[in-house]
C-alpha cells in the first residue's frame, strides 16, 4: 500500500492520483483542471471522468494534505489513491481488446476471400485464396489464441479440463488441417471458421473482463481512505510530514480535529472523541483521553491529539483483520463457474464424438485424410462458441441493468452465486440501519429556532451536527444570520443571534444511556434537547419480505449488545445473534455452510470483513468501510436496502437466460452434429451455423436489459 506517485522522467515533478467521486458534468472537468493549474506547485492536472479520477503533476515539495485542500477549495471532496491494484487491472482488458481487434480484422479479410471460393472460384484462384487465408490466419491464431492456449495448458497440466481445452484443440487441429489442405490443393480450408470462432469467443471474454473493470473502478472511487500520513514531532520540537508507511513505532503524531489517524497508537496528551464508523460501523463517537488506545482509520472529532505510534503499516489492527479475511476468502476461490462446470462433461463428450467420427469413417472405408477432415468438422461445429458467449453476454447485460439500479457487481460469478443463495445474514449497524444518527424530535422546535440551529450546525464537522444540517436542509430550512460563530473544543458551537447568545452542543449533564443528544440554548433559556437515533434503512422490512419470498431465510448477526439489537429485530420480525466478534461470525457461517446452506452475507464494517469474504456471496452498502467494500462481491448505492432483493431477483433471471442459452446451444448441436458426422459440413455451412447460433444467444441475453425493473 503505497501512495500512487511516481517520479516523472525529469525528476523534478511527481504524479499523484486522487479519486474525486463528486464529478458529475463537463463543467466539473473544466473547473478542476483549470482551477488546479492555478495552484502554485501544481504543473498539470488531468481528469479521467470514467474513473472519477484526477492525475496531478506537482513539485515534490507539495505534500498530500495541501493538494487535498486545494481540491477542496475548488469545491470537490478528494481522496488520494493509495492502492495500485485498481490501476493495473485494466491491463488484462487491454490485451484482450488487442487480441479481439486482430481476430476481427483477420476474420473479415479471410471471409472476403472465402466468399469468392464459396461462390465457385476453382483451380489456381482457389489455391491462391486459400494460401492468402493461411498467411493471415496462422499469425492471428498464434496471437489471438494465446489466452485460450495458456489457460487450456494450465488446466491439462493439473489433470483437469475446462472450456478452453476443446477450443484450443479444435482451433489448432482445424488450422493445421486447413494448412495441409492448402498445400495439397484440397477443396476445403476452414481458416475462416477457426478465426471467426476465436473472434466470437474473444468478444465473450472481453465482455466479462470489461464488466469486472467497470465495477472495480466504481468501487475504488467509493473507497474512504485511511489517512495517507501524519505530521510527526521531531526531537527538536519541529514537525514534518510522514507518509503512512514511513511511520515508525515510538514517533509522536499530531492529529488535528477532523483528521484520520494514520497508525495505531496510544494517546500521549489531549482528550477528544473519535469516530469509529470506519472500523466498526458504530455511529456513536467514543470518548478518549491520555493513555487510551486508538486505531488507524478512526476520525478525531473534537480536539487535537498527540498520539505515540505503537504499530504502523502491516502491524495495525486493520492489517490483522485483512489477514483473517484472506484466509476466509480461500474457500470461495474454489468455486467453479457454471461455464466450466458445463465444460466438464461437454469437453470429453465432444472429443469422444470427434474420435468416434474419425474411427467410424476409417472403418467405413474412407481414407485417413477424409476421416480426419470430418473429425475436424465435428470439432469446429461443436466448439462451445455459444457456450463461451452465452454466459458472459447474459451476465454483462444483467450487470449493466443492476448498475443502473445502483448495484455494482464485481464479476460474473457473483450473479451465479447470488442465484444459489438460500440463507441471508445481515449485520445490524450500517447495514439494516443507516449507520448514522438521524434527529427524531426536530419538530418540537419552533421554525425560527430551527434556522438558528442550522446556522450553528453547518459550521461544525461533528457527526451530530452533520446529521442536523442534512435533516434541516431536507426540510427546506434556511440558515439564520448568526454572528461571532466559533467552536468550543469539547463542547460545541457558540454564536450570537440578534444580540442573544446562542449555543449548540453537548448537554450539560449527560443523562445516562442518552449519548446521542445535543442541547440548544437561546439567551440563557432552558436548553432544548434534540435526540438522535440510528434509523432503519428505507424499505428494510419490504426487502426482507421479498427475500423470504424468494426462499432466503434472513437473520441478524451483530457485534452489538442484545439491548441494542432487540428493537431492530423486533421491528423487522427476524431472529438475531448478538455480541458476535469477527471470528464468531466466521464460525457461524462455517456452521451454516456445513449444514448445506449457501450464505448471503450483507455487512459493512471492518469487523464484517472476514464474514463477507467467507460467505458464499456477499454484499455491502456504499457507506461501508473500504475493507467491507473490497471483501464484498457486490456493492449497493444509496440509503435503501431494496437493491439487495433486486440483485437476487436479477441473478435468478440471469440464470434462467443462461440455462435457456445452454438449451439453445445443445439444440444447435443436436441439429449440426449429425450433419458434421455425415460429412456434409462444408466451410460455408460451418460459418453460417456458428454465426447464427452466436447471434441467437446474444439476442437472448439482451432480453435481460430491463431485468432490474
Amino acid at each position, binding site marked *: 500500500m503505497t501512495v500512487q506517485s511516481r517520479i516523472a522522467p525529469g525528476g523534478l515533478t511527481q504524479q499523484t492520483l486522487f479519486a474525486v467521486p463528486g464529478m458529475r*458534468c*463537463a*463543467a466539473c*472537468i*473544466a473547473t478542476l483542471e483549470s482551477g488546479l493549474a492555478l495552484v502554485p506547485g501544481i504543473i498539470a492536472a488531468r*481528469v*479521467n*471522468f*470514467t*474513473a472519477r479520477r484526477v492525475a496531478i503533476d506537482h513539485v515534490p515539495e507539495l505534500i498530500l494534505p495541501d493538494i487535498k485542500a486545494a481540491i477542496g477549495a475548488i469545491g470537490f471532496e478528494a481522496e488520494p489513491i493509495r492502492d495500485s491494484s485498481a490501476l493495473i487491472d485494466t491491463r488484462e482488458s*487491454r490485451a484482450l*481488446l*488487442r487480441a479481439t*481487434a*486482430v481476430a476481427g*480484422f483477420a476474420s*473479415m*479479410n479471410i471471409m*472476403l*476471400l472465402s466468399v469468392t471460393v464459396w461462390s465457385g472460384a476453382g483451380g489456381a*484462384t482457389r489455391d491462391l485464396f486459400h494460401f*492468402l487465408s493461411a498467411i*493471415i490466419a496462422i499469425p492471428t491464431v498464434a496471437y489471438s489464441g494465446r489466452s485460450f492456449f495458456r489457460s487450456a495448458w494450465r488446466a491439462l497440466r493439473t489433470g483437469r479440463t475446462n472450456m478452453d481445452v476443446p477450443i484450443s484443440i479444435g482451433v489448432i487441429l482445424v488450422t493445421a488441417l486447413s494448412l495441409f489442405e492448402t498445400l495439397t490443393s484440397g477443396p476445403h480450408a476452414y481458416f475462416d471458421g477457426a478465426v471467426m470462432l476465436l473472434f466470437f469467443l474473444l468478444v465473450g471474454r472481453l465482455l466479462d473482463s470489461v464488466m469486472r473493470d467497470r465495477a472495480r473502478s466504481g468501487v475504488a472511487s467509493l473507497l474512504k481512505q485511511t489517512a495517507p500520513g501524519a505530521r510527526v514531532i521531531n526531537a527538536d520540537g519541529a514537525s514534518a510530514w510522514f507518509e503512512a508507511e514511513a511511520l515508525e513505532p515510538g514517533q509522536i503524531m499530531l492529529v488535528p480535529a477532523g483528521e484520520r489517524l494514520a497508525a495505531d497508537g496510544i494517546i500521549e496528551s489531549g482528550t477528544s472523541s473519535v469516530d469509529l464508523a470506519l472500523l466498526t460501523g458504530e455511529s456513536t463517537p467514543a470518548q478518549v483521553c491520555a493513555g487510551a488506545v486508538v486505531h488507524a482509520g478512526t476520525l478525531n472529532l473534537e480536539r487535537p491529539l498527540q498520539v505515540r505510534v505503537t504499530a504502523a503499516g502491516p502491524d495495525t489492527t486493520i492489517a490483522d483483520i485483512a489477514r483473517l479475511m484472506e484466509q476466509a476468502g480461500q474457500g470461495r476461490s474454489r468455486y467453479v463457474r457454471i461455464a466450466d462446470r458445463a465444460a466438464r462433461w461437454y469437453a470429453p463428450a465432444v472429443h469422444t464424438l470427434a474420435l468416434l467420427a474419425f474411427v467410424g469413417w476409417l472403418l467405413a472405408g474412407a481414407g485417413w485424410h477424409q476421416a480426419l477432415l470430418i473429425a475436424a468438422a465435428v470439432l469446429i461445429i461443436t466448439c462451445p462458441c455459444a457456450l463461451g458467449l452465452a454466459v458472459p453476454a447474459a451476465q454483462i447485460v444483467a450487470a449493466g441493468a443492476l448498475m443502473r439500479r445502483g448495484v455494482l457487481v464485481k464479476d460474473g460469478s457473483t450473479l451465479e452465486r447470488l442465484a444459489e443463495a438460500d440463507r441471508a445474514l445481515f449485520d445490524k449497524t450500517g447495514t439494516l440501519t443507516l449507520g448514522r444518527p438521524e434527529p427524531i424530535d426536530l419538530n418540537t422546535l419552533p421554525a425560527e429556532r430551527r434556522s438558528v440551529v442550522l446556522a450553528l450546525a453547518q459550521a461544525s464537522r461533528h457527526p451530530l451536527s452533520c446529521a442536523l444540517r442534512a435533516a434541516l436542509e431536507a426540510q427546506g430550512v434556511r440558515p439564520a444570520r448568526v454572528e461571532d460563530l466559533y467552536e468550543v473544543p469539547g463542547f460545541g458551537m457558540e454564536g450570537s443571534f440578534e444580540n442573544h447568545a446562542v449555543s449548540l452542543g453537548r448537554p450539560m449533564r449527560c443523562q445516562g444511556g442518552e449519548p446521542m443528544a445535543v442541547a440548544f440554548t437561546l439567551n440563557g433559556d432552558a436548553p432544548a434537547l434534540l435526540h438522535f437515533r440510528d434509523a432503519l434503512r428505507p424499505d428494510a422490512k419490504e426487502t426482507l419480505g421479498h427475500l423470504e419470498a424468494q426462499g432466503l431465510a434472513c437473520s441478524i448477526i451483530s457485534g452489538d449488545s442484545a439491548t441494542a439489537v432487540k428493537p431492530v429485530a423486533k421491528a423487522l420480525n427476524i431472529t438475531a445473534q448478538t455480541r458476535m466478534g469477527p471470528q464468531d461470525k466466521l464460525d457461524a457461517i462455517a456452521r451454516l455452510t456445513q449444514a448445506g446452506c449457501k450464505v448471503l452475507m450483507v455487512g459493512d464494517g471492518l469487523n464484517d470483513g472476514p464474514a463477507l469474504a467467507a460467505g458464499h456471496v456477499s454484499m455491502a452498502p456504499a457507506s461501508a468501510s473500504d475493507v467491507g467494500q473490497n471483501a464484498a462481491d457486490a456493492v449497493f448505492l444509496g440509503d435503501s436496502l431494496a437493491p439487495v432483493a433486486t440483485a437476487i431477483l436479477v441473478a435468478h433471471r440471469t440464470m434462467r437466460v443462461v440455462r435457456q442459452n445452454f438449451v439453445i446451444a445443445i439444440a444447435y448441436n443436436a441439429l449440426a452434429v449429425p450433419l458434421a458426422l455425415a460429412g456434409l459440413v462444408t466451410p460455408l455451412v460451418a460459418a453460417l451455423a456458428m454465426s447464427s447460433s452466436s447471434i441467437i444467444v446474444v439476442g437472448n441475453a439482451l432480453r435481460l436489459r430491463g431485468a432490474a425493473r
Partner: protein
Amino acid sequence: MTGLTLLIPLALLLGLCGLAAFFWALRSGQFDDMDGAALRILIDEEEQG
C-alpha cells in the same frame, strides 16, 4: 484475374491501416476515458486573451 493482383494487396493494406490506427489510438490513451471524451467537447476553452 489481373485486377486481383492489385486489388487484394490493396484491400489487405487498407485493413492493416485500420488495425494499425486502432492500435495507435489504444496506445496513445484515447480509450482511457470514454465518458470524459464525450463531455470534453462541451467545455468552452476560450482562454482570456
